[in-house]
């Protein structure tokens, strides 16, 4: 993968670190990036797009926590083996917890029936498949 394969849009509503996280997640999920493949260095990505290296580090760090990337000596960041990725489902779900709790609270505030919220979530999940 080359640094220019990432697209960075400063004007977007998403912060830049999140844009990087989302793109890499998609590329890995769709196997366009396969296990063991090296990612461009933080410096190369920051240099290519003239962005703050700490932003790139933060994105890589989050993906590492999710188990999608791992640090390999001499090779830098690589896409993790998929078995390891499966093992970390629970941990990844844990990271959704704050967002889900937030939604639950808001649903209560709005007085929405549980059934409606769950159905809506299913629709959204289906749409992003």
């Amino acid at each position, binding site marked *: 993968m080359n640094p220019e394969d990432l697209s960075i849009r400063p004007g977007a*509503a998403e912060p830049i670190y999140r844009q990087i996280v989302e793109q890499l997640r998609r590329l890995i999920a769709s196997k366009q990036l396969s296990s063991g493949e090296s990612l461009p260095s933080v410096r190369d990505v920051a240099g290519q797009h003239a962005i*703050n*290296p700490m932003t790139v580090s933060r994105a890589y760090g989050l993906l590492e926590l999710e188990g999608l990337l791992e640090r390999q000596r001499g090779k830098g960041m690589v896409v993790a083996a998929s078995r390891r990725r499966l093992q970390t489902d629970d941990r990844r779900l844990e990271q959704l917890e*704050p967002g889900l709790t937030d939604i639950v609270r808001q649903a209560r505030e709005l007085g929405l029936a549980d059934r409606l919220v769950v159905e809506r979530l299913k629709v959204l999940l289906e749409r992003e498949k």
Partner: protein
Amino acid sequence: MGGSPLRCEGIFKRYDGNVVLNDVSLSLLPGAIFGLVGRNGAGKTTLIQILLGLLQADSGSAVVMDEPALAMTDASKRRLGYVPQQPETLGWMHVGDMLNFVGDFYPMWDQPYVEDCLKRWSIAPSRPLSKLSPGERQRIALIRALAIRPQLLVLDEPAAALDPVARRDLLRELALRAGESGTTVLFSTHIVSDLERVASHVACLHHHKMVLIAPMDDLKETHALLQVNSDMAEQLPGKLPGELSRRRRSDGGLSIIVVRDSGAVWPAPAGEAGVQFESPGLEDLIIELTS
């Protein structure tokens, strides 16, 4: 050490009876790249000059590397890189001679870096400074400021004289050179997309007051724009929790910027009919805050 490399508190400044800065406080974290935005005349340059001790405030304090800005020692000055809006030039000198001359005063001067930059940006050392374009002059000023390996780098509108390609070069230089060596940076700009690329923090000066200071990454997640239609606007109580700005639109509705702690819920009207909820880009956010 370990404290903030650049900070000020409660700065007031008047020129000819007009308030230029009204109770402005700012504190940079070590290693941060701090972007200062604001419309022309908001007081950005005055604030920078006060922070660096080039100008005296009417009241308040400014501290640079743990020394009062107005009484900085030479040792601190040698670790401070400053690029003013219009870099002064020793016009009669050649590029290479000027850089050698300046370099002699700085113990950490990085000559290989200077030569590498001049080569990369195709500026021959033999050229007289007076013959450089404004963009080239800006680059020389930046090379000079970065070559001293500053602990603190302050740039006043560094991108103003540059075309888009040169601007991108400058940002890259800032992000890589300063970002990686842990240099703390403060730069002012009115080009929001530049800010968004390289800054770790953003501060916004409006009507001589600081209206926003936030980490860049969290900014979009903790700020929202509520578009309230005119019917709903009538029923809206006073100030909403977390409300930063409110603007009456020409259709009678309201545009309101609200802030929340990350993870907390948005204020109540966010979910109601007649209220549209938007995540503003940085540019929209700054415009709402400064119009």
